[in-house]
């Protein structure tokens, strides 16, 4: 579905991502694991063209390397970015409306979003900035879903959330996979993300150092020690 070849992201002289290649097949959940500063967020920014990058990105075998962010959104590649990035001064409802700015059926999707996260319906008139961190994260995920993603990329969806809410979000992801969505997941919580993933890549200082089936990685001694803390 998505194939990335030799993707590099530089910030001035800092090389955040160094010629990485990876792919996501249709209907898969793929995780990217790695420590802080390994280049996970930059890799997603590169795929979404939020930052400039070198290398090739193919989507459904079509070269989309020259596409801007909104052109990629139009194709169904949706990023739910780190730190939520909700529009704090806009109401919850307006945030969701912006989610379907380019694509997605607003009427249909808003029902689904409210069903998945009922708290958002209660707060729909409230400014997004007044929500709690967990609610904002739900809003960020809901906003990404408003555009009917074909490939959903989530950057640290569990960051700073209570375990109950993390479970809720992961449950939602499994549900989405079942409905046929492909998901690229970047997570600090490696154990949780490997459990729902099909495959995973391990990123270290901008390079992919390892990749395998999620099940194999879960039993890998080295992975266990460095990333799972078992």
């Amino acid at each position, binding site marked *: 579905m998505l194939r990335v070849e030799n993707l590099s992201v530089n910030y001035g002289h800092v090389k955040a991502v160094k010629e990485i290649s990876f792919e996501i097949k249709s209907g898969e959940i793929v995780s990217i694991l790695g420590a802080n500063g390994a280049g996970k967020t930059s890799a997603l920014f590169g795929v979404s063209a939020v930052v400039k990058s070198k290398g090739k990105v193919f989507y459904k075998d079509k070269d989309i390397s020259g596409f801007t962010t909104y052109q990629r959104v139009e194709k169904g590649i*949706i990023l739910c970015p780190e730190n939520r990035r909700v*529009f704090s*001064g806009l109401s919850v409802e*307006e945030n969701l*409306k*912006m989610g379907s*700015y380019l694509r997605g059926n607003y009427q249909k999707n808003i029902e689904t979003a409210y069903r998945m996260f009922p708290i958002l319906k209660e707060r729909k008139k409230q400014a997004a900035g007044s929500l709690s961190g967990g609610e904002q994260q739900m809003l960020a995920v809901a*906003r990404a879903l408003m555009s009917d993603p074909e490939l959903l990329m989530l950057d640290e969806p569990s960051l700073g959330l209570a375990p109950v809410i993390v479970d809720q979000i992961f449950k939602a992801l499994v549900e989405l996979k079942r409905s046929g969505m492909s998901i690229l997941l970047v997570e600090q919580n490696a154990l949780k993300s490997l459990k729902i993933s099909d495959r995973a890549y391990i990123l270290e200082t901008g390079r992919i150092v390892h990749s395998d089936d999620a099940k194999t990685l879960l039993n890998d001694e080295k992975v266990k020690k460095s990333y799972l803390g078992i």
Partner: protein
Amino acid sequence: MLILQSIILGIPQGALYGLMAFGISLIFRTVGVMNFSHGNAGMFSAFIALTVFLLTQNLLLAILCAVIFGILLGFLIEKFLMRPVKHLSHGGMLIITLGILMILEGLAQIIWGVNPFSFNELVSGPPLMFTLGEDGLLILPLNDLLITVISLGITILLAVFLKVTKVGIAIRARSQDEVGSKVVGINTNMIDGLVWGIGISLSALVGVLIAPKTTVTPTMMMNMQLYGFTAGVLGGFTSLYGSILGGIILGILEKIVGIYISPDYQLTIILLIIILMLAFKPSGLFAKKFEGRV
């Protein structure tokens, strides 16, 4: 009676300050740059209106041309001057707007010279007069009335546009979080261009509306720029209606100072207001609580 009269004369002037402030703050909130070339962009548009008027003798067509020119100028400034430096620094963008200010003034001098041109009012005719009490007489010039109605009308229209339309919400979204607005599929370059276009066209409109009073010269908008900025500071750059209210307060205050103290002190008072506001209430009189740049 004198105070009522100064209020009545201050409101139309203030409404124009407000319109000026609306454009400046719209650009500031969305793109994050204080546009120093705002007034001169309006001045240049007023010259366009003057030229069209001299050729066609049609005032409405002339004003329309100025506004359209303003929109185009805004788009061009964004596309060719702002976009290349957008992610480098806000300071760089600020310096560029200073450059545009000087270039526009120089160009206007070269093309049209420094001698003032007169410009027609929208409506002429005897002012409305009201008698109040024994010997009270209030004078309300028709043109002033029309200017107030136009300014308030456009402000309300724009506020509604920003509040309810999809593109309007997208402008507010982009002003709050650039990455967030990119990932939902908003074309941020297009939005920035649109905001520059709307902003400069407002200045163009102010230019043609104030031209009958200031005459059309390359320096006609110098005060407008300063007063527009002050109105923005007064009302708060964060509120939609704040700039127009700030403008009207400023217009009234200016007339009152002019009548009761001395016209010489008008500018001094304005500068004092900037300093006091920035020192004691930098978010402005009508600001909502601070939410990023908006």
